[in-house]
């Protein structure tokens, strides 16, 4: 597989603020890649570098095999972008803006445009200011999905969409993937990312802290287990990788590091298992773990500073 986006060691400062501090990102061609991070982590800054709107201080970035800064125009023929907060011209109708963006990208599929407007229930005759937040997003989404491009860069594209429209958005992204297009999806809606993304990258303070397929990442975290045993649980507390053990008679609840699951299950079956539920970690837990490390790290830092 070739890479649609490669970023390595990207640095970008605004005055004293280091927005990007050695960020790495790899997006394979044809995948839907989730781009996660708390507010202010540098997601939008990265995307704006990838679009050639910002110039990186150092580090390399390639999009579809081109330099996003020097080859911006040629590159943008093959890229569609949806910002998290779409602003429109107050005296242009939504339909006019969709067509303008389509033409500026070098082509629009008329049939798909009509179909998307119908699916998103968008009124293309309304003018800029009269659209609600969600409807402004729809204008940009229709323009992006109806364009004939290889890469879609979506920066929190569903902010303001209702759950029904969110569902339609997810179907659209799946259709794009089925056509072999690449999608970089920055999002805070973790269920959306879990549903759609083949791989994710989590960034924090301008650095990539985790990157890989969801299965890989889950491997690094804990699975929740609830079991009812035939006999008393033996030695469970001493097994490596078991956390938060709660024993009530023959009923046990605990979390276990996913890579230590094997040994724990063996120990359980020695006691005899009557029932067992195990829940894989959600992306939310994954994300919160990184974020909470961050908060704890900050707290430690503050204490140390005292």
């Amino acid at each position: 597989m070739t890479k649609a986006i490669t970023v390595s060691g990207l640095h970008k400062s605004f005055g004293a603020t280091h927005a990007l501090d050695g960020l790495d990102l790899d997006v394979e061609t044809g995948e839907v890649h989730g781009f996660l991070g708390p507010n202010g982590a540098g997601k939008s800054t990265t995307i704006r570098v990838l679009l050639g709107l910002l110039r990186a201080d150092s580090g390399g970035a390639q999009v579809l095999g081109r330099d996003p800064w020097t080859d911006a125009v040629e590159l943008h023929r093959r890229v569609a972008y949806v910002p998290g907060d779409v602003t429109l011209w107050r005296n242009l109708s939504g339909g006019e803006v969709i067509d303008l963006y389509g033409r500026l990208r070098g082509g629009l599929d008329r049939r798909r445009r009509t179909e998307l407007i119908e699916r998103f229930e968008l009124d293309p005759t309304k003018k800029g200011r009269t659209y609600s937040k969600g409807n402004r997003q729809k204008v940009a989404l229709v323009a992006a999905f109806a364009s004939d491009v290889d890469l879609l860069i979506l920066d929190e594209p569903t902010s303001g969409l209702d759950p029904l429209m969110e569902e339609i958005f997810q179907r659209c992204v799946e259709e794009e993937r089925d056509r072999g297009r690449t999608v970089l999806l920055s999002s805070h809606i973790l269920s959306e990312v879990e549903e759609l993304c083949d791989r994710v990258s989590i960034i924090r303070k301008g650095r990539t802290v985790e990157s890989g397929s969801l299965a890989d990442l889950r491997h690094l975290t804990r699975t929740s287990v609830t079991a009812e045993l035939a006999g008393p649980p033996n030695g469970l507390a001493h097994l490596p990788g078991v956390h938060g053990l709660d024993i009530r008679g023959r009923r046990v609840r605990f979390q276990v590091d996913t890579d230590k699951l094997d040994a724990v299950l063996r120990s359980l079956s020695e006691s005899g298992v009557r029932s067992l539920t195990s829940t894989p970690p959600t992306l939310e837990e994954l994300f919160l773990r990184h974020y909470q490390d961050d908060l704890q790290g900050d707290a430690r830092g503050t204490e140390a500073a005292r």
Partner: protein
Amino acid sequence: MTAVASAFAVRAPRARQLAGTGTLLRFALRRDRILVPVWVAVNALVVLSMPRTLRSLYGTPAQRADLADQLATNTSLRAMVGPVFGQSLGALTAWRVGVYAGLLAAVMSLLVVVRHTRDEEESGRQELISSAMVGRRAPLTAALLTAGVANAALALVITAGLAGQGATGALALGLGIAGVGMVFATMAAIAAQLTESARLARGLTSAVLGAAFVLRAAGDAGTNGGSSLLTRLSPLGWLENERPYAGERWWVLLLFAAAALLQGAVAYALAGRRDVGMSFLPTRPGPATGRLGSAGALAWRLQRGSVLGWSLGFFVAGVVYGGMTNGAADLVGSNAKAREIFQRMGGHSGLTDAFLAAMVGVMGMVAALQIVASVLRLHGEETSARAETVLANAVGRLRWAAGHLLIAFGGAALIMLLAGLGFAAGYGRETGPILGACLVQLPAVWMIGGLAVLLYGVLPRGAVLAWGVAGAALLIGWVGPALNLPRAVLDASPFGHLPKLPGGQMAWAPVLTLTGIAVVLVAGGLAGLRRRDMTG
């Protein structure tokens, strides 16, 4: 249940409609802490510098009596400035600047009111403010009070500054000017309720202001004494009829008060009846599909309205100035000092040519405002984040900027050409030389436009400084010759280097140099734009 309901119903809704006005007023004054003082200072400067200028022009009572006599027969000049009611320096000051100071106060007031009402709603900021403990009519009240504070300050400064010429007349003039301001503040308050766009609200109010000026001008052209019905329909005509320093008619101030109260009441009634962010003139739907297909077409679509407005304004102004050229030249010609000033502005040649050259120069300096406004559209597109989504398409920064710059620089040429055609039509002679004179202004206009491009491209945060440059050039060109400023100051403006046409010698060196500088400035700005980060 009923207890809860009645607990909520206890408060009479009307009593809380002004809740939060005080906080909003303080907030508005803080936001306007630079804008309003600058407007007041410029307006006061225009008024307070006048007695000195007039003393140097018409120092003796005999000269002043002579002027008054001539004005009684000079229709076109009366149309521009209004009739003279007295021969004291104070009366002549009120005559010479009253209408224009009123005009400035009106523009300041309409900008302030729209800025704190419709602008806030259009941007969506009002929703957040209105969700707090803020009454339905509080934002409008705060906006009008802000305009009231600004106009009161203006009246105070003018009264204090002109007190040397007689405190009574100074008070009358100051209050009259502030009165015009408040009439247009409340007018803008109505427009802000009717339209959904702040730009349209400002445009509507400005159109009414323009109509008020034309009514007064037409009335004064016909009669000497401000007694025409047309003059009396115009708030600017009321100001003239208040007759500061010439037997003040204090009751005219009641007209201002009544008009402001009436319009304020209409605006209040409308404000209480509509939804936040909505208007009484709803936006019409547009086409479902569009024909715009390039960044240039988009730029034209965004700017075509203002190009049309400037074109119309410049042509009409040309016709008006052209039409009054003969009369003005006669008047100026009879006063040695005034002749000297016009020759400083327009060059040493026949008086008609000198007057024409001076007026063409003023048009050029106003065209500099157009080019700055047009160039800074780029800045507006960028800060509103609309540029970002356009540039994320296959559109290079240069191509995107080129559309707007073509309209800015070509638009300047277009409006100067139309001004020239207007001058020629109004004056009826010398079409070729007048057109040439108008086009000779372009290198200076373009240079200021180039400076705006450079600022925007290299130092986007300082882009608005271009307004300061254009304003300074206008101020130097307008009052510089009358104040007999040193050559170095006059030369600081690019307009100071242009040949004085028609009538003077054509000089290619400064014209080509200024054009060259403009080209370099634009190139520097575009190079900076290519290199820098886009701010979002």
